[in-house]
């Protein structure tokens, strides 16, 4: 497997969401029996009906407190991965959503200044350095970065592809 999907800097347009966006919002239970592409089209529809149809690859989600609160359903993180979301920044995350997202290959940063960012602005995120630049407003922030070895897993596409790659190399 090559490193074609490896990327250290993510640049994308911002989608802003508020506090306590829950996993039912991200992956509504009534669509659980539908395939991934259908489930993803309903991601966050209760909060923003335009999101799923209009989000572009590498767009960046900015959320408030306890982002991903709720059940352990991994479909929530999978929906963002499927839609090509580049990174998620939030004031805080629920523990299980946070871990699921990283394990499905999504970079997540705890970002206290979420309320200083507006929808539609262009952000540049270096998840390893923990640096966030608002290319629209010129503001810049420094937060805790994701260690390189964890980023290696994220760049591989998540835990399972990373393990597959690791053990293929060892063979």
């Amino acid at each position: 497997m090559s490193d074609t999907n490896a990327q250290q800097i993510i640049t994308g347009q911002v989608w802003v969401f508020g506090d306590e966006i829950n996993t039912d919002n991200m992956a509504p239970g009534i669509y659980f029996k539908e395939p991934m592409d259908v489930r993803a089209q309903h991601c966050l529809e209760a909060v923003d009906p335009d999101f799923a149809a209009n989000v572009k690859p590498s767009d960046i989600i900015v959320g408030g407190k306890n982002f991903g609160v709720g059940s352990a359903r991994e479909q929530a993180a999978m929906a963002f991965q499927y839609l090509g979301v580049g990174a998620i920044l939030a004031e805080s995350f629920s523990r299980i959503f946070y871990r699921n997202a990283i394990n499905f290959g999504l970079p997540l940063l705890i970002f206290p200044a979420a309320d200083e960012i507006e929808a539609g602005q262009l952000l540049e995120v270096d998840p390893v350095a923990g640096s966030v630049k608002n290319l629209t407003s010129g503001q810049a922030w420094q937060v805790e970065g994701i260690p390189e070895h964890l980023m290696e897993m994220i760049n591989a596409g998540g835990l399972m592809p990373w393990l597959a790659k690791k053990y293929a190399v060892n063979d």
Partner: protein
Amino acid sequence: MAQTLVQKIIARAAGRESVRTGEIVTCQVDLALLLDSGGPRRIWPRLKELGVGVWNPDKIVLMTDHFVPAVDPQSAAILKLTREFAAEFGIKKFFDMEGIGHVVLAEQGLLQPGMFCVGGDSHSTNGGAFGCYMAGFGAIEMTGVTVTGEIWLQVPETIRVNWEGNIQRGVAAKDMSLYLCRELGMANAFRAIEFGGSTVAAMAMAERMVLTNMATELGAETGLVTPDETTLAAIRAAGVEPAADALDWRSDADAAFLATHEFDATSLIPQVAAPHKPSNGGPADDYCSVQIDQAYIGACVGAKLSDLHMVAEVLKGRKVSRATRLLVAPSSKRTMAEAAADGTLATIVEAGATLLPTGCGACAGLGAGVLAEDEVCISSTNRNFQGRMGANSSQVYLASPYTVAASAVMGHIADPRELLF
């Protein structure tokens, strides 16, 4: 740099002198608990996909508890596959139908202060009562651990919770836990809760495990109790010698806690959590008008020997009300044997209770004792989310074993102190 207990354990497991809170590190796992629920049936297909085996069969502990005993061909197949997994990978610490995993770990002396342990079940926090790190993870992460023996985590902040004074007769650790769910809320993600104070210092291990078990209801990464002589005695009672450095595992005196909460145990009265979440409730007294269809003693958190002793203390010389039913599913085979030997089971059965097999049972809606539409149950288990214990419209109240037993006698929710004085 001053460190909390959880920081010290994580630093050791990450091969570091110290770690900062918020930092992400990779830890080497000392013990991985796999259960029939999210264990081999989810992990084995992924191992096949990867073409790999397990990293170290001696560090994996495998238990069957969620689907035991089998009630249909599906649960029988899950148990069969779990047994085949143990044989295929040479897992010697395989405990088949011996009891609920979190309880059997303690009984077998498999937990030592300072260990870094993970489990494929949210109530894995139970193990933190031994002064080790133990937290729950999803099946995909447990697959990663099974293959690599390591896991990444973000070093949590610690909230210190001190309970002071003697608890009243008829009040138990479960009441403290339900009270805490309301006081601290259920959104303490990425935080460890360290329980201390004179009340906790005086508690037996079984009661300390109730506090750490329900740390997961607080949303916490894990719950811990600083190891002391009680911890060492529990390890010795399991036939294992405590680690030489066991008592060294404690937070530094000047360690920084995110918050420190002080609670007065002397004024705590019996609590219940009302449907449909553990943080929803109040004093048992406020719910005396609630008639119950079923009283249930079970689960890792609420059916150990000490819990059955509480039940027997209330039931002694009394009968379960004809208006309700009392089901008792002891937490482990050993609990069952000890309760049989000391007369506790006889007292419970003579009072009219129905004895169920050991296992997770109705707590997770998997075994005997599930509820019909609109039925009301009071339960010594740890979660009362809607539909968890049966039909969607069923109503589950959580309480201590004392309160569940008193309610079984009265036929409605009752404060056990009325029967104990």
